[in-house]
């Protein structure tokens, strides 16, 4: 269990706010090729919260991003399939980060993105009964690979550039 300090709580709040804002702004843009496919810029901040603060802070940032982001963008029903998908993908990222040594953050981000998009689409098809959307699964996974590479690369660059005296 990580230490709970005021600094960490404030930083986690900042990462959550940045993730919520980027999620809300991304929803205003048209999707990439397929309906529902987006870059996932908010995952940069969630990964940063996970790596710099700790596992529980990462999950808190994720839950705040999904609940508040869905409320602000007007699509409350998306919590139903975004939340389980987000928790499963972040859990996988935590397992890969902690259990496997010598694994780059880019590959972890790609794995998380593919799992997130696949699980989200599966739950959407199950809940709504729109079985036809299962056809988008492989194409969404391919777009998720690209998005995951971008997010992972951004997180890698950000962490490399954080001054050592700012690490909590």
């Amino acid at each position, binding site marked *: 269990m990580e230490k709970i300090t005021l600094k960490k709580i404030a930083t986690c709040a900042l990462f959550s706010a940045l993730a919520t804002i980027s999620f809300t702004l991304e929803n205003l843009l048209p999707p990439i090729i*397929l*309906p529902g496919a987006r870059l996932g810029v908010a995952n940069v901040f969630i990964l940063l919260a996970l790596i710099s603060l700790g596992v529980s802070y990462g999950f808190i940032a994720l839950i705040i991003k999904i609940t508040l982001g869905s409320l602000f963008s007007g699509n409350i029903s998306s919590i139903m399939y975004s939340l389980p998908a987000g928790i499963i993908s972040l859990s996988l990222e935590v397992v890969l980060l902690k259990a496997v040594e010598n694994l780059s953050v880019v590959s972890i981000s790609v794995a998380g993105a593919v799992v997130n998009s696949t699980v989200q689409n599966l739950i*959407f098809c199950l809940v709504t009964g729109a079985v036809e959307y299962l056809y*988008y699964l492989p194409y969404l996974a391919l777009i998720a690979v690209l998005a995951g590479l971008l997010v992972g690369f951004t997180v890698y660059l950000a*962490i490399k550039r954080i001054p050592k005296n700012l690490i909590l």
Partner: protein
Amino acid sequence: MKNSDLITQENISVSSEKNAVANCEKDCNGGQKNLTLMQRVSGGKIFHKKDLWVYFSLVIIVACLFIFLIFPFLSKGDVNGFLITQNGKTVLVFKPNSSQLFSIETEFADQVDIKEEENGIYTVKIFSSPQKTGYNVLVFNTKKVSVKVTESTCSDSKDCVYCPELTKSGSIYCAPHHLKITPVSGSGFVPPTTG
């Protein structure tokens, strides 16, 4: 305390440190397990050899997902209309080649507003509830036998508006309004295409 006791204690502390280092070299593989996540990531590279395992397993997962594309072995019938449902209940059926172009269920008569435009194009406004809190505007083309969602008050993302025009295959789903548009054909089930 005697000098001999101090010397003995020093020897113990030095030897325990050596043991710790030896254990670390043996078990820790460069001490990664003792580092925090931040230290591990900041000290890591952008690509490691073990990443290939992750990418290889992802390739297998994506290849397995392509199985869903061959899922409907049912034959594609000729699309002769579209079915619009809300919360699972039929709202409207559009059949251009039949005697009645639009057949609206009586329950939803107040929630549907049809306008005839030029050249066989019809604009249909479907409200999401009897209180008319939200709506979707659908444009039907009788010549092309197609439907497109042009306007919606569902959410900021408006996935239904960004869906491509529905002609022969696929479906359009507006999740916040629980509105579903599916093609109607002889076999009943028509698989979608992307793009």
